[in-house]
């Protein structure tokens, strides 16, 4: 996994609450058996005027000029500013894959849905929770000021505005460590293989039915 340390990025605003995973990446794209290539279909139903299909070339499709990511001033954005309960709905990891593939590395919102929040950390995307007033203020600034950038520093746990103002955010120590170092948590867990086996031994005595194979 890519590491996340400091990001100086252009901000794109998505001014809707409860953006769900069906909106982030519609289900027809979930048929892919790959992890990559979802970027062109991020927010597909909002972004294009026609219906997207997997395997189809997206370059000639009619764009919805009203959708925020189609506005040239947000081209190259790596930070998505969003509203509450971002990422609600399904567990599909295709949602962070699509956001990453598009170029987003950080999402800022007042709140996130649990599974999505978790999935971001596994895919080198930093979800940042800032309080609603700060998020409101950021929306105003982004709309007002073309080229609005933020500096997100994971190690310092701060979001810094161009004028030096900072907002602090919380992140769990373990997640921070993994993301800062781009660590694969399967490898980390397997270092504890012996502890897992001991646990299994104990449970096999306490509750042997849990170990009956499904067959």
């Amino acid at each position, binding site marked *: 996994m890519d590491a996340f340390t400091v990001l100086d990025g252009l901000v794109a605003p998505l001014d809707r*609450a409860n953006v769900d995973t069906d909106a982030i990446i519609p289900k027809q794209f979930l048929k892919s058996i790959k*992890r990559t290539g979802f970027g062109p279909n991020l927010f597909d139903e909002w972004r294009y005027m026609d219906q997207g299909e997997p395997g189809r070339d997206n370059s000639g499709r009619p764009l919805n000029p009203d959708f925020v990511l189609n506005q040239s001033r947000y081209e190259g954005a790596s930070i998505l500013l969003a509203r509450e309960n971002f990422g609600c*709905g399904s567990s599909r990891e295709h949602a962070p894959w699509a956001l990453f593939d598009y170029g987003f590395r950080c999402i800022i919102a007042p709140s996130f849905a649990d599974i999505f929040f978790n999935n971001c950390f596994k895919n080198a995307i930093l979800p940042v929770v800032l309080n609603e007033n700060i998020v409101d203020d950021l929306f105003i600034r982004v709309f007002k000021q073309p080229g609005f950038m933020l500096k997100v520093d994971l190690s310092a746990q701060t979001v810094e505005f161009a004028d030096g103002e900072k907002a602090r955010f919380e992140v769990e120590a373990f997640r921070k460590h993994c993301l800062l170092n781009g660590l694969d948590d399967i490898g980390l*867990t397997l270092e504890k293989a012996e502890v897992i086996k001991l646990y299994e031994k104990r449970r096999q005595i306490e509750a042997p039915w849990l170990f009956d194979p499904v067959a």
Partner: protein
Amino acid sequence: MGKQTLYDKLWEQHVVHSEDDGTSLIYIDRHLVHEVTSPQAFEGLHIAGRKPWRTGSMLAVPDHNVPTTTDGAGIDDPVSRLQVDTLDQNCNHFGITEFNMADPRQGIVHVIGPEQGATLPGMTIVCGDSHTSTHGAFGALAFGIGTSEVEHVMATQCLIQRKSKNMRIWIEGELRHGVSAKDIVLAVIGEIGTAGGTGYAIEFAGPVIRELSMESRMTICNMTIEAGARAGLIAVDQTTIDYLEGRPFAPTGDTWKNAVEAWRSLTSDDDAHFDHEIKIEASTILPQVTWGTSPEMVTDIEGYVPDPNDYEDPTISIGIARALEYMGLEAGTAIRDIKPELVFIGSCTNSRIEDLREAADVVRGRRVAPSIKQALVVPGSGLVKRQAEAEGLHQIFIDAGFEWRNPGCSMCLAMNADRLKPGERCASTSNRNFEGRQGQGGRTHLVSPSIAAASAIAGHFTSAEDL
């Protein structure tokens, strides 16, 4: 030891290791697998040269992409077919039990787990699917995970988690006639909102829950995720045990007896602490119908579509206005005056035998309204289908003008050929009414099986009593 909630107990029994910051490694007893969220996880194992830790903990089934037409033609769409074939290959390669498309036991993953007794009390159960919360109805800790976590569980039998907070939703009083589990859970979501349960495990309790069948309990836990909580829970009681006895993967003989004894302790202790408690009086719940594009946008059958101008908070008011535009609805419209063009009875929320009985009772001897373009009944599994046919339910549906289909997710999320066209309006027993969920531009109203059936007959939303 202090008083513990059911969730506290399940959590404690599964902690393998804890870090100082509270991050814990928890053991996973059962891993359910379907074709959509597993291929990249299997690929990850292959690339790293890893093997599943315990294949006996896994049960796989294709459900999201499978066709439900009964002509036996197989999957038309090559992309869908590849995904299903990939699951077959991965299961063969690693020796994982799979109910493939030809297996009579095939069905929606959250229907077959309980049906087979692969879902047991006291287990931790995961699946790369958010409606894994369904299995919490058995006093199990069950929640959806992403594909990276699917791979993590495959490789290590564990997950890295932090403990959630405890919420209890206590439901007491008398349920009105014609009100079902679906109405209860939609009413709960209407009350606490789609983010109300974020960060919590929600236990449903109280006399009304105790009276519910296992299938109704599953419907409630299924939609806990729509309230933002990854896990829903219901304590074990005799109903749980009776349901499981004799199921193919349930323990037998002395092991059964020991298991039952252990399961009886899977309840919250009296006076256990909940971080948040909600009480709902059951008699206040009427049959529910959603009018918007989020499950919290719900009212009852006597209700009206809200007016965005009545709300001061701009985020709410804009959200409602946007939803009404998408749904093609005018503020102030009576729910009863809304006319669905399609009806879908199915999904992991409402496709079990009791759901089909509930709908068939309404439909019996009647005809679907001429204004309904399509009415589908999609049983949750091959065994549910067989049971329904043994009871003659299929004939009731067919005689009324419904299509009787093969099991699968179908129009719940429209990954197969069953989907809405832009602008089409559907009364659906599924769980999500997001924009585009049932097909791009499609308009979904979530309802119970009996409301779906009654509305199919009437051609507008109504309850069975008013037919």
